[in-house]
């Protein structure tokens, strides 16, 4: 099983191998919630400087129960409930990281991180550079990002584009339980500040995980995308929940004779530009799929890569599927209309295929 883990780690460059291995050897189902919980638990057991801080993380076991059981196991010094001040507890986490601890700061949702934005960008992200390496900030900011269900404008924004534009931050967006475990453990062990974008809707969803993923030292490399499904006609690129939509669309399109390669970005900063370009050069067509707003979104960067680095290999203009350019409405029908669906992905693929 250790060899399997090593194979998985080394095979990131040869991405065709990994998903087949997982399907063959999958033995357990694990929810995203448990993936997050087990990753934090193992890292806290491994390194006593790791601690968790946020609103409701301790006594309440987490607003979404992600930190369930951690207070009981590690005590109130390492699992801290905070007063309601994102700017405050983010700044405190940053200061603790400056002083040698490894905080995991939970935002109840990344929407609330806007109140701590200065601490994340001007303090956590920039201090290593401004101090020419004298100050390090090994902190992880994690929480729910993007649209949930029926929580409207101030609880549904996707922050992938904003955070991934900042030098000094690493930004990760897991999809399944393997991503979640491997990337969160890698984030906690990383010396740089990491923004870890989860999705509330996926918390309860189960994914197959094999023994290698359950290993307490299972980490995934930061900065590498994963090919979830190999294909030849078009590359579907997404992160987080949209990877699931892309996989579903790929299945439907296969029945129509269109072979889609589904790329799971995993890492938004550093972005696996070479991996993305490699896939686009192979299929000659690309559709980027994201929930966030269109202007200056992740899709804009994907299209730039396609045009700047793969222009001669493109058989069709790149396409983006994004959320509607409105603050998220509340009414269920309006909310559904504001977000991408598999149908939108199918339509975009058919357009690039010229069908």
């Amino acid at each position: 099983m250790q060899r399997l883990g090593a194979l998985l780690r080394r095979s990131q460059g040869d991405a065709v191998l990994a998903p087949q291995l997982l399907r063959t050897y999958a033995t357990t189902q694990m929810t995203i919630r448990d993936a997050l919980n087990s990753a934090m638990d193992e890292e806290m057991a491994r390194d006593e400087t790791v601690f968790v801080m946020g609103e409701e993380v301790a006594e309440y076991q987490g607003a979404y129960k992600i930190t369930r059981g951690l207070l009981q196991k590690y005590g109130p010094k390492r699992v801290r409930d905070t007063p309601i001040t994102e700017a405050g507890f983010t700044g405190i986490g940053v200061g603790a990281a400056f002083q040698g601890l490894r905080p995991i700061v939970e935002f109840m949702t990344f929407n609330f991180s806007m109140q701590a934005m200065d601490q994340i960008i001007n303090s956590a992200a920039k201090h290593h550079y401004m101090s020419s390496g004298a100050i390090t900030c090994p902190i992880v900011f994690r929480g729910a990002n993007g649209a949930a269900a029926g929580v409207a404008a101030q609880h549904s924004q996707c922050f992938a584009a904003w955070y991934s534009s900042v030098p000094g931050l690493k930004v990760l967006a897991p999809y399944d339980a393997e991503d979640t475990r491997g990337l969160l453990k890698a984030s906690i062990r990383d010396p740089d500040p990491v923004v870890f974008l989860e999705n509330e809707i996926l918390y309860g969803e189960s994914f197959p995980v094999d023994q290698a993923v359950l290993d307490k030292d299972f980490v995934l490399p930061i900065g590498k995308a994963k090919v979830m499904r190999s294909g030849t006609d078009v590359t579907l690129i997404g992160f987080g929940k949209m990877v699931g939509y892309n996989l579903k669309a790929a299945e439907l399109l296969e029945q129509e004779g269109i072979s889609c390669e589904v790329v799971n970005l995993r890492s938004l900063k550093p972005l696996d530009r070479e991996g993305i370009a490699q896939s686009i050069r192979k299929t000659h067509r690309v559709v980027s799929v994201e929930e966030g707003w269109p202007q200056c979104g992740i899709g804009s960067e994907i299209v730039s890569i396609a045009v700047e680095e793969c222009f001669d290999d493109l058989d069709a203009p790149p396409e983006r599927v994004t959320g509607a350019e409105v603050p998220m409405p509340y009414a269920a029908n309006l909310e559904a209309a504001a977000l991408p669906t598999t149908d939108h992905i199918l339509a975009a693929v058919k357009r690039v295929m010229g069908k």
Partner: protein
Amino acid sequence: MLAAWRTVAQRRQCPRAPALLAAARHLASQTAAASTQSASVAAEVPSSSSGSEPSARLLSSSQQPEERMDFPGGSVPFTAAMSFLGGTFSPRAPLPCYRTIDSAGLAIADADIPHELDQETAVKMYKTMVTLQTVDVIFYEAQRQGRFSFYMTSSGEEATAIGSAAALTNDDVIFSQYREQGVIMYRGFSVQDMAHQCFGNIHEQGKGRQMPIHYGSKALNFHTISSTLATQLPHAVGAAYALKLQKRNACAVAYFGEGAASEGDFHAALNFAATLKAPVVFICRNNGWAISTPATDQYRGDGIAGRGPGYGMASLRVDGGDARAVYNATAAARKIAVEQQVPVLVEAMSYRSGHHSTSDDSSRYRAAEEMRQWRARDPVARFQRWLVDQGWWSDAQDTSARQEARRDVIKALETAQKAPKPPLSAMFEDVYARMPWHLEKQQAEVFAHVRTHPDACPADIPVK
């Protein structure tokens, strides 16, 4: 009471009248049967089958009057008197200002001096003040001459910075705002170090990343200055929390101005430090001005020290122009923070004698008379007078110290100005702990471009 309820029910034709009457009767019988129990008694109000009557547990009013309200945050006494506290109608008396040396520099009799200043420390403090004053004057002029882009003096606040620095140990982690160069100088940051930083040359630790006066030194436990106001306050609390978990005999110290104390981070940091029981000393330099905003426009309460008790924090106001008082206040605050593992707030009252920065001209918004009055009680002069009275300093020593400082500062500037700038390669380093491949690629592109277009890179800037 029963009669009253009956009347009310009848008058109002209340549909719940029968139930209310029943409740009142029940209460009356409880009252009649009351004993001298001091505990509150819950009386069940019988609910009728219709379900519309309330079934509430009512505390009996027949027992001893309740004295206190217990609630999730604690316990407070009740009162039947209504009396607002604070504000213009019932202002609280301001916290008095602790001092041990008067405006002329004469020691005040019977002042509390829990931490005596020994000669060596006092002389080191004063010499640092002399150097600081010299640096401030000459560096300010250098900026005016265009030798570097920006400078901030700390005239009028030398005693606050140096008096407090002298009371700390080198294990205490310092987070400052931008007007505390006296602190890092006292710890050992040399005039040459300061000059290198202002010129952003190859010798400065910051590799030319930061604008002038943003000093920092890991070796001296002084965090690199960050321009965003008050963000250092929660940082200090976090660092203090780390020290607490690491069980270190040290505290974090956060310096800030009275203007920065208006930021949300101030509230979050102080409130949170108290709940976390973090060993941090907050030192506010209340110098009366935030650029052109006087303190009267910055707040209406009792300054910054007046806010401390609101957070449950021990607070002291001190004369920031009295170096010996600042020394004692800081030493005492540090002792509380480290021994009791709680935060402490010190507000040092002083005056910003200079402009906010080289981008400011304070004569546009301040009265010359006000500035003159404060210069007349200059903190350095006051401490000098006290030193001389102790027999630890003389005018001759003063003249020679100032001459030597002037020579050192001018030489430091010249040396720094001549030193080369950081190489182009330094631009991409330190964004992350290890350079990721996408920055390596960009760096390689820049080098390639410079090789083929040498004019693109100024001659005095090395590439690697």
